[in-house]
């Protein structure tokens, strides 16, 4: 019974992966880039799911992790010649990790609503710092830079065409997903879920809940930062807008729409939201958030488990 | 089992007395808490002005029964009739207005409201004349002089016994037809216990019915006319208080450890 389920799951996974691989060859450029962006936002949403869906910690701070990953990559790409992909990744991840450590410290001392509000305010702190440090960060206008080459020293060097970019992102996101899946299904992941279910009881059983929460935040922050790096490389600019708490809010929206605690759900949520946004902006131009916002509210009320919520148990075994 | 059958003397012809509808009738009530089946078909009755006891061990469903009557817990099955009308689907604030007052186990006076403000939560109702309100207040101060003394003190600063009195006084402000009393003597000094007994007697004197949940057997036997015994979520036995003694095997069966 379990085996059959696993088979179905992996079959579905492979089919979707195959479709995503083939996509750049079949789609016109706009949609191709759109798809790549969906993957990146999906990664961000997945990282957020670790906290919201698995540990039960609602965070509005992901824009901080994402934004700093983005600026970290920007720093690397602007300061070194020629721009180096791996350096960008390194800078971005380190910066994101630093922020995550900062947030993690507070996460162990606050619960629920206080944690949510505090993470929100942290994103704003970083936003204000970045926005006003014009000399370092370009302030309101952000930083522009060139894409690095996809290069492994001594092996090869390719230019990042949209297609290559797409495959790179797909590769990174897929690996991230598999890694996160492995983690959530490990004993560690089980403890996280136990914390979500009943923190007091988990503590009573003897688990050092604080340590688990810290690791969860670091993990979540790292992958969010990774998404930020990918975004920077994909779009070749970094701007303070992405550190504004609205990004965190949208991330949480993807999570809720898609179904928390499923990893794939948030990715689907991101896709759903972004496609709706694309569709709505054709009809409603820049006011697309009005119908979209209303749909979101309706989903919160009537479909709280999200699009894939019903499949949560299934997707986690 | 109807009141007439219980209380009716064999020597009195049933036809000589008009059939009296019980004030409160609980009929086959089931409740769940998540998946736990808490009340498993509770049935009982309380007549006008009658003091009825509900005895049982911890956790058998006594408090839940009162909550179901008060509308704080919604039965999944069964009926609750008050003066012949179904109240089982009413929200708690309507149940209170219909004439059912609830005094919970933890007393739960409003901690940051003064004694007077606590009383006013029940006193300030539409359609009650100012004179009447003053009268009710005076009456309750007469019953509970210590509350009059402390009328501007915050509810949370009162002692346990004082809070119990406040909780009952507050309920009386609703001018209820029945008061649901959940373990009023719990945690009180013996001196206060006898005071509770007096209060219940006074309520009966006013014509207010009381459904008394307790674990204090002597008090219950003295205050109540009839007693229901609950075990595992249902009423298992029913007796007149006059027929029971403290050492009764029945008591041991339902309350013994």
């Amino acid at each position, binding site marked *: 019974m379990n085996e059959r389920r696993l088979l179905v799951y992996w079959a579905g996974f492979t089919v979707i992966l195959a479709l995503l691989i083939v996509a750049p060859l079949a789609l016109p450029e706009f949609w191709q880039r759109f798809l790549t962006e969906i993957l990146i936002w999906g990664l961000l949403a997945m990282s957020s799911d670790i906290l919201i869906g698995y540990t039960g910690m609602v965070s509005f701070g992901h824009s901080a992790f994402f934004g700093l990953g983005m600026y970290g990559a920007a720093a690397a790409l602007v300061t070194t010649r020629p721009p180096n992909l791996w350096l960008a990744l390194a800078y971005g991840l380190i910066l994101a990790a630093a922020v995550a450590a900062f947030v993690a410290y507070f996460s162990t001392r606050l619960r629920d609503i206080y944690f949510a*509000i505090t993470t929100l305010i942290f994103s704003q702190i970083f936003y204000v710092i970045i926005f006003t440090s014009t000399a370092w960060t370009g302030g309101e206008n952000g930083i522009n830079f060139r894409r690095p080459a996809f290069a492994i020293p001594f092996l090869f060097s390719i230019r990042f065409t949209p297609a290559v970019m797409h495959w790179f992102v797909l590769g990174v996101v897929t690996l991230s997903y598999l890694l996160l899946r492995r983690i959530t299904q490990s004993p560690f992941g089980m403890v996280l879920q136990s914390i979500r279910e009943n923190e007091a009881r988990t503590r009573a059983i003897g688990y050092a809940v604080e340590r688990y929460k810290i690791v969860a935040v670091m993990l979540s922050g790292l992958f969010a930062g990774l998404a930020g790096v990918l975004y920077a490389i994909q779009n070749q600019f970094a701007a303070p807008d992405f550190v504004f708490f609205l990004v965190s809010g949208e991330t949480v929206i993807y999570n809720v729409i898609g179904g928390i605690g499923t990893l794939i759900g948030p990715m689907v949520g991101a896709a759903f939201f972004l496609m709706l946004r694309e569709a709505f902006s054709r009809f409603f131009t820049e006011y697309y958030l009005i119908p979209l*916002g209303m749909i979101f509210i309706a989903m919160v009320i009537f479909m709280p488990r999200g699009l894939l919520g019903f499949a949560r148990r299934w997707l986690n075994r | 089992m109807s009141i007439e059958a219980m209380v009716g003397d064999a020597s009195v012809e049933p036809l000589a007395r008009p059939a009296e509808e019980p004030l409160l009738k609980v009929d086959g009530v089931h409740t769940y808490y998540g998946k736990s089946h808490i009340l498993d078909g509770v049935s009982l009755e309380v007549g006008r002005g009658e003091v009825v006891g509900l005895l049982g061990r911890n956790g058998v469903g006594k408090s839940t029964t009162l909550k179901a009557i008060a509308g704080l817990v919604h039965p999944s099955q069964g009926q609750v009739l008050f003066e012949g009308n179904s109240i089982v689907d009413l929200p708690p604030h309507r149940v209170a207005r219909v004439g059912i007052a609830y005094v919970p186990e933890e007393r739960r006076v*409003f901690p940051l409201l003064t004694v007077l403000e606590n009383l006013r939560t029940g006193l300030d109702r539409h359609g009650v004349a100012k004179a009447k309100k003053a009268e009710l207040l005076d009456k309750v101060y007469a019953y509970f002089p210590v509350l009059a003394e402390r009328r501007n003190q915050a509810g949370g600063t009162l002692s346990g016994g004082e809070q119990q009195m406040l909780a009952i006084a507050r309920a009386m402000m609703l001018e209820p037809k029945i008061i649901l009393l959940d373990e009023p003597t719990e945690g009180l000094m013996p001196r206060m216990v006898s005071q509770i007994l007096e209060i219940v007697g006074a309520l009966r004197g006013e014509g207010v019915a009381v459904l008394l949940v307790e674990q204090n057997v002597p008090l219950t036997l003295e205050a109540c006319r009839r007693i229901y015994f609950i075990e595992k979520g249902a009423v298992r036995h029913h007796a007149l208080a006059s027929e029971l003694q403290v050492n009764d095997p029945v008591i041991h069966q339902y309350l013994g450890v």
Partner: protein
Amino acid sequence: MEIPLDQILIQTINGIVTGMILALVASGLTLIFGIMDVVNFAHGELFMLGAYVGVLTLAATGDFWIALVVATLAIALLGALIYLTTLRPLIGRDPLTTILATFGVSLVLQNVALWQFGPVARKIEEPITGHFSLFYLDYPWYRLAIAGLAAAIIGALWLFLKFGTYGIWIRATTQDRVMAQAMGIPVPWVLTAVFAIGSGMAAASGVLFGPLVGVNSQMGTSWVLRAFIVVVVGGMGSLSGSIAAAIFISLLEAYASLWVSPAQAVIVSFVVLILTLLFRPTGLFVPTAR
């Protein structure tokens, strides 16, 4: 580095003025949180829409005070509507859902405003013109008037809560919702009314604040964040705490802007928040009686 005394005094007054408006916004927020555990993300938008209704009414009637009253009532009504449609269905569910729902509402309201009123800022004329000499500045009377009015509104709220049947109902429901119901208090209506009152207060703040800056669809966002900080620092659910915290934080920010730019002065409030959370998480200004 010497900062002249008169600048400090001027900033003190500025700090108090801003603080009073912040207090007005925050008290609505804390009232709502205290009674129904809802973090109202849309509060800033209610502030903003209040300002816009003020603009429209002012244009129609030419009277600022009528505009203030109309805006307050209109947005109070809107608040009740929002509560009934999006928050009441969520009673009993995970508190996260109310944050999300109100966040969604804020997105919708902000964009509706943008759609209806456009991106260009509108202006509300000061009802009280004229300045007085404050050291080297011509200080507008209106600013003092704002502080006074805000204080008056908060004072009225306090009186309402302290005396009067409905005030008791609200306080009882805040302290023990279940027992309030058991005492016959119509809690569902109390909750709706409180949300309406909170919304109305946000709207009033918006109208009062309108003449100081332009009225645009974004004006709510920064206020809601500062209001959250104030509510947390003041002790969630504590009215007096929020007021004290609002003034405290505004004063600190006002002083800070003697040294750094106003955009950066905002960091002061963030720092205060962090310190509060680390050392006195229940709130810096929670009165000892509680």
